[in-house]
């Protein structure tokens, strides 16, 4: 028995089920990160003093990470566009690039975190560092999750392309929506934590 509306659009919503599902999930993710941003705001407004981000954090490395993640969003959407153009080889190239750029982001994050720990700067050191590690740590976990899904579609999951290319294209689009959301969160995290 086949799951309905994985390709065809539901007559009542005009969308396939996967798309509604991923947007509802992203809505819940907005609330998750929103709650943490609200915590950051409350703590900063209530604090007697609050350090400038660039006095403690590595802005050049974070800027590089921003470039890496934005680039990965481009390769992600190009992977989907390649499937729409029926070019599977290009899809594998762009999706592989997305996964590698995600890995690059995590490597840079590892370098940042290691430097902090080397200088005895931990989440318990200050409120600023507590919220910094919480926000970027949770974001990093989302990068890992997104990479796992993308790697699956690059690898074993790609066999769906042979049997049902439209369904596979939709699944890649949905995982792309999650990946772009991860980029979107970083677009706000970067200035809020590092530049203000």
């Amino acid at each position, binding site marked *: 028995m086949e799951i309905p509306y994985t390709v065809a659009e539901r007559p009542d919503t005009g*969308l396939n089920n996967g798309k*509604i599902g991923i*947007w509802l999930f992203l809505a819940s993710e907005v*609330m998750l990160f929103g709650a943490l941003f609200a915590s950051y705001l*409350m703590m900063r407004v209530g604090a007697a003093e609050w350090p400038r981000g660039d006095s403690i954090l590595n802005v050049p490395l974070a800027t590089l990470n921003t470039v890496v993640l934005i680039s990965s969003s*481009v390769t992600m959407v190009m992977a989907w566009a390649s499937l*729409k153009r029926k070019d599977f080889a290009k899809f594998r190239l762009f999706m592989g690039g997305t996964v590698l750029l995600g890995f690059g982001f995590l490597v840079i994050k590892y370098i940042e975190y290691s430097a902090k720990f080397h200088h005895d700067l931990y989440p318990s050191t200050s409120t600023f560092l507590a919220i910094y590690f919480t926000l970027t740590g949770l974001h990093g976990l989302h990068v890992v999750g997104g990479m796992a899904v993308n790697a699956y579609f690059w690898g074993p999951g790609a066999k769906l392309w042979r049997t049902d290319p439209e369904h596979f294209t939709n699944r890649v689009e949905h995982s792309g929506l999650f990946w772009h959301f991860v*980029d979107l969160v970083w677009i706000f995290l970067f200035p809020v934590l590092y530049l*203000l």
Partner: protein
Amino acid sequence: MADHSSPAEIDRQVKIYILVFVSLMALTIVTVAVSRFHLPTAQAVAVALTVAVVKGGLVAGYFMHLVSERRLIYWVLGLTAAFFFAVLLLPLWGQWDPIRILTP
């Protein structure tokens, strides 16, 4: 919703993706450059968040295809945005209007 299927449409979208990518890079440079001026907090926050909203709008609008999405998705996101701002602003309102305990 726009037809994403025709080769001409996909080619047109790819050009837009590249344009958005260049814009995002430029805005990243702007946001870092402005931070070097060490503006007063209120101005720095306004500039940083404005640039972030523009960048986020480009990602959401074009990479996530929100510019041509169905109304149901707009409703879901509208509701989400309302609750997001409530979570952000209601605690601040409580901070500015605290319960004062009167001591005899």
